[in-house]
């Protein structure tokens, strides 16, 4: 029996004020499933950071979240500019966010490092000019 649950979200690239709605929705669904609060918190943090990144850098994208018996997998796919230097982007404090994004309290270069810190697996596939797909897993 395949009992994997899947949720899909389209992230709007223009609307910074709505960023976080998909993460909130996932968090509520995981709560309803009765998952451990520590697991839920990790998923919520990692997904929110990813969602914000999609809005800041990639004009939105698609997020797919699957819940299996052993883990929660988040796949964040965008058709943005791609990441030229992934190692540099993974460093805390490195950011290419615009000043207006920083004035809202983001763009501190914490997004990708937070995603890495709060997940058990993270893989970045990026092609310049084509987009980025980030796959993250949190073990249950």
């Amino acid at each position, binding site marked *: 029996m395949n009992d994997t649950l899947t949720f899909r979200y389209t992230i709007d690239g223009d609307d*910074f*004020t*709505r*960023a*976080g*709605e998909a*993460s*909130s929705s996932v*968090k509520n669904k995981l709560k309803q499933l009765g998952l451990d*609060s520590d697991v839920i*918190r990790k998923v*919520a*943090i990692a997904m*929110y*950071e990813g969602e*914000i990144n999609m809005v800041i850098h990639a004009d939105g994208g698609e997020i797919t979240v699957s819940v299996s018996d052993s883990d929660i997998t988040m796949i964040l796919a965008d058709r943005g500019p791609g990441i030229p230097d992934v190692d540099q982007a993974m460093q805390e404090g490195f950011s290419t966010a615009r000043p207006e994004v920083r004035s*809202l*309290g*983001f763009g*501190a270069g*914490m*997004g990708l490092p*937070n995603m890495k*810190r*709060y997940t058990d697996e993270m893989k970045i596939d990026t092609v310049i000019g084509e987009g980025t797909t980030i796959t993250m897993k949190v073990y249950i």
Partner: protein
Amino acid sequence: MKLKQILALPCCRILVEGQPDREISKIFCCDLLSIAMSRAPADGVWVTVMGNRNTLAVASLTETACIVLAEGVTLDEDTLGKAEEEGIAILATDLPVFDMALKIYQEGFA
């Protein structure tokens, strides 16, 4: 301490009442949302000068019980409505962040 003790502080204006009987775990001060996202404690009271819709999103994801907007900062009606729906208290004060956090500490944690 309970949220209602914070709601009763004379230096605060109540914008959204939240759940007055909720037990508060900790006081947290931070204006950078990426840091707040990873560090804000569940059931905490968060004192900040960052007042925008994303502040509420972060509070909601981290299970923050109460946001206190310091230095006269406020939030738009839409966001306050959303906070109401989510049961997150929103207070406003003219005090600086540290002074406000200290008042809460003296009231319930000292």
